[in-house]
C-alpha cells in the first residue's frame, strides 16, 4: 500500500514538474470548459475531436489532454446554466434549476464559485472510489471466461438501451443492436472472412471508431443547433468567483450523498452525467427540510447537481478500466482513444500494465487541479465566448469534425463514412432513438462476437455451460429482469407481488 502511494506521488510529481505536461493539462482543461460552456458543443464531441490531435503524443500526455478536457467540459456546462439559463451540456441541466435564480439575484459569482468547488470535490471523490473499487472488480473479472465476456457486452448494450431511451426501451435496444451490426462490418477476427464489405477494400478493416463517433455526435449537433436558430439570452453579470467554504462545509452530507450517487450512476454502462445530476438534485430536494426554496436559488441543489455530474467521471472509468465497458458517452470515446494508443482496457489491464490505474489517478488529480484553477481564474474570459453566436462557431465545428475524422487515418473514405453516419444518428435522435447504445454496440461488438464463438468452440457448440457458471447465470437473470420489466404483464405481476408483501405484515399485525 505504502509503495503504491509512493509510486502515485512519484507519477504525480513527474507529471506536475514537466512544463509541457502542465501546458497540455491546463490548455485541455480550458478548452474543455469552453466546449462545456458553448451551448451546442459537448464533452463527447470535445474528446472525439481531441483524440485525433493526441495521436502523436505519448500515452500519458494524450491522457492528460483527454481527461483534462473531459473534466473541464463536464464542469464548463455549468457556466451557461447559471448565467443564461441554458445548459451547456446535458450534464448541467439540473444546475440551471438553482444556478440561474442565484445569478438573477446577483449571486452569479458565488454560484460559479460553488460549482467550481463542488465539481472539484466530486471529481476527487469519484477518483477515490475508482482507486478503491477498480482492483476489486478487476480481480473478480479475471475469473471471467468467454461466456461471461459475451454476456457482459450484451448486458452493457441492454442496460444502456433501457436507461438512455425516453420511456421506450425497445428503441434503445434497437440502437444497441444497430451498433453491433456496425461492428460486424469488415473481416472477422477468427477466420478473416469479409462481412458486409460489398467488395470495398476500405471496409476490410472495419469501421474506424473516431469518424463514426464524430459523425454520430457532431453532425446531429451541428444540424440541430443551426436549424433551430436559437438566440442566446444576455449573460448575467457576476462579481468575483469566490468559493464559499462555509457553504461547502454546511453541505458536507449533501456532497457525500451526491458524489456517491454520481459514482454509482457513472458506473452503469451507457448512462452518464446528465442522469446523475438530476438524480442527486432530486435526492437533495427530498432530503431538504425546506423544499420551497428549491427552484428559487437553493445552493444545496446546485452543489448536489455539480458534485454528482463530476463524480460520474470516476464512476464511468470503473467499468471502462476493469471490464472494457464504457460507463458514459465520453468514456466510450475515451475507450476508443485508449485503444488507439495501444491500451486495451479490461480485466487483464492490471496484469499488462500494473501501474496504469495509479497513472490515470494521478492524471485525473492534475486535471481536477487544472479545472479548479481555470475555473477560478478564467471564468470571466470563458463567459465572453458565450457572446459568439452559434452560426459563427458551428460551421467551424463542422470543419473540425471533417479534419478530426480525416486526420487519424489520413483516409478520405472516413469522411465519406462520417456524413451518412451523422445523418442516421440525426434521424435516430429525431425519433428518440438514443445514440449511446449504438456507440457502445460498435465498441463492444468485436468483444461479443469473438467471445461468443470462442466460448462455443471450447464447449463444442454447447450452450448449457453458460447456465452452469454463476456469473453467467446472474448476468442472464439480470438481463431477463431488464427485458421483462418492459412488459406490462410483468409490471402488473410485480405490483401485485409488492402489494401482497405489504398487506401480509398488516394482516399479521391485525
Amino acid at each position, binding site marked *: 500500500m505504502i509503495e503504491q502511494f509512493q509510486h502515485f506521488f512519484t507519477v504525480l510529481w513527474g507529471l506536475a514538474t514537466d512544463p509541457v505536461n502542465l501546458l497540455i493539462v491546463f490548455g485541455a482543461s480550458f478548452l474543455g470548459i469552453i466546449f462545456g460552456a458553448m451551448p451546442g458543443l459537448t464533452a463527447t464531441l470535445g474528446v472525439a475531436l481531441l483524440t485525433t490531435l493526441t495521436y502523436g503524443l505519448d500515452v500519458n500526455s494524450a491522457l492528460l489532454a483527454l481527461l483534462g478536457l473531459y473534466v473541464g467540459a463536464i464542469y464548463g456546462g455549468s457556466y451557461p446554466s447559471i448565467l443564461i439559463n441554458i445548459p451547456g451540456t446535458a450534464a448541467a441541466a439540473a444546475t440551471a434549476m438553482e444556478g440561474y435564480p442565484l445569478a438573477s439575484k446577483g449571486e452569479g459569482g458565488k454560484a460559479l464559485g460553488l460549482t467550481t468547488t463542488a465539481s472539484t470535490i466530486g471529481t476527487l471523490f469519484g477518483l477515490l472510489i475508482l482507486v478503491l473499487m477498480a482492483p476489486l472488480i478487476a480481480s473478480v473479472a479475471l475469473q471471467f471466461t468467454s461466456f461471461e465476456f459475451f454476456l457482459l457486452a450484451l448486458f452493457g448494450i441492454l442496460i444502456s438501451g433501457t436507461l438512455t431511451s425516453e420511456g421506450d426501451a425497445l428503441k434503445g435496444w434497437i440502437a444497441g443492436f444497430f451498433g453491433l451490426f456496425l461492428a460486424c462490418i469488415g473481416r472477422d477476427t477468427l*477466420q478473416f472472412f469479409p462481412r458486409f464489405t460489398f467488395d470495398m477494400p476500405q471496409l476490410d478493416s472495419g469501421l474506424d471508431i473516431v469518424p463514426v463517433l464524430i459523425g454520430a455526435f457532431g453532425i446531429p449537433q451541428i444540424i440541430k443547433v443551426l436549424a433551430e436558430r436559437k438566440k442566446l439570452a444576455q449573460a448575467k453579470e457576476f462579481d468575483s468567483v469566490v468559493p464559499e467554504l462555509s457553504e461547502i462545509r454546511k453541505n458536507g452530507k449533501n456532497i457525500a450523498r451526491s458524489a456517491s450517487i454520481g459514482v454509482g450512476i457513472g458506473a452503469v454502462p451507457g448512462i452518464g452525467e446528465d442522469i446523475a445530476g438530476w438524480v442527486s438534485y432530486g435526492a437533495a430536494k427530498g432530503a431538504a427540510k425546506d423544499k420551497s426554496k428549491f427552484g428559487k436559488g437553493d445552493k444545496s441543489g446546485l452543489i448536489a447537481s455539480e458534485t454528482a455530474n463530476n463524480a460520474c467521471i470516476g464512476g464511468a472509468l470503473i467499468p471502462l478500466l476493469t471490464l472494457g465497458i464504457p460507463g458514459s458517452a465520453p468514456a466510450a470515446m475515451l475507450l476508443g482513444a485508449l485503444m488507439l494508443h495501444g491500451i486495451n482496457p479490461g480485466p487483464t489491464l492490471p496484469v499488462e500494465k500494473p501501474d496504469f490505474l495509479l497513472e490515470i489517478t494521478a492524471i485525473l488529480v492534475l486535471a481536477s487541479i487544472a479545472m479548479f484553477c481555470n475555473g477560478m481564474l478564467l471564468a470571466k474570459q470563458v463567459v465572453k465566448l458565450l457572446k459568439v453566436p452559434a*452560426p459563427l462557431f458551428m460551421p467551424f465545428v463542422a470543419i*473540425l469534425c471533417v479534419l478530426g475524422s480525416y486526420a487519424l487515418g*489520413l483516409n478520405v473514405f472516413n469522411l465519406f463514412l462520417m456524413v451518412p453516419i451523422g445523418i442516421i444518428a440525426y434521424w435516430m435522435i429525431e425519433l428518440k432513438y438514443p445514440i449511446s447504445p449504438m456507440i457502445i454496440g460498435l465498441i463492444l461488438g468485436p468483444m461479443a462476437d469473438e467471445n461468443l464463438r470462442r466460448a462455443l468452440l471450447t464447449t463444442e457448440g454447447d450452450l448449457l455451460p453458460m447456465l452452469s457458471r454463476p456469473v453467467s447465470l446472474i448476468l442472464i437473470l439480470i438481463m431477463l429482469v431488464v427485458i421483462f420489466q418492459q412488459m406490462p404483464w410483468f409490471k402488473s405481476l410485480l405490483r401485485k407481488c409488492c402489494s401482497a408483501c405489504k398487506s401480509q405484515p398488516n394482516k399479521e399485525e391485525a
Partner: protein
Amino acid sequence: MQISKTDSINYRREAFTSLALVIFALAMLAESLTYPLTASQGGLENVWYVSPALFPLVVGSCILLLASIQLLKLYKTAKSQQQSLFSLASAPSRKFSQQSIDKFLLVLMLAGYVYGLIPNSDFVIATILFQLTITCRFYLADAKKLNEQVLLVFCFVAALLFLLNLFVAFESDSNRLYMGDLISFPALGFVLYKTERYLTANQLHKQIRILLFACVLLPIIVVLIFKYLLLVPMPSESSVLLLTDYFYYQVLGF
C-alpha cells in the same frame, strides 16, 4: 379520440422507420446466410459455432424481432385510435417548415462539401466556400437574395465537381484538382464579392470583419496548424496549399 397532425406525422415516421428496420434486418440475414456456415473455409472444416455468419445472424435476428415488436406496437396504437396503420402511414398534406428546409439544406451543404468539394479541389478553397455558404445562411439570415445566390453557386460547384470526378477520366489526381480549382476559385471569388457588396450596401462594416475572420482567416489558421505544426497533410492539396508549401519550405526555409 382524434390524434393530432403532429402525432400523425410522428407515427408515420415511426412506422416507416420500423418497416425500414425490418427490411434492413431481413437483408442483413440474407447476406449473412451467404457466408460459410459449415463448408470448408481456407482448407479448414468449418462448424456452425465458429462460422463468421453466427454473430451477424444473431444480431440480424434480434433487430428483426425488436423492429417487428415496434411495428406491432404502432399497429396496436393505431387500432386503439380507430385508425388503420396505413392511414397513419399515409402522408398528411403539409407545408415544409423553415426548420425542415434548413435541416435539408444543412445536409445538402455537408454532402456537397464532403463528396463534391473536398475530393476535387484545394482543401482551403473548399473549406472557405463551405464556411461562407453556411455562415451566410444562418448568420446573415435576413439577406434572403444573397443567401439564395450563394447557395446556388455552392450547390452548382459541388455538383459539377462531383459529376466531373464521376464521369471524366483525368490523367492524374493533380490534374483533377487543378480543374476543380479552376471551377471553385472563381465561385469563391463571386461569393466573397457578393457578400462584401451586400454588407457594404447595408452599412454592416463590423459584419465584414467578423465574416472575414470566421470564414476566411480561421479556416486558413486551422489548416496551417494541422499541416505545418501537427504534420497532417490535408485531404486535397493543390493551388493554395502548394503556394503555402512554397512559402514555408522555400521562402521561410523550414
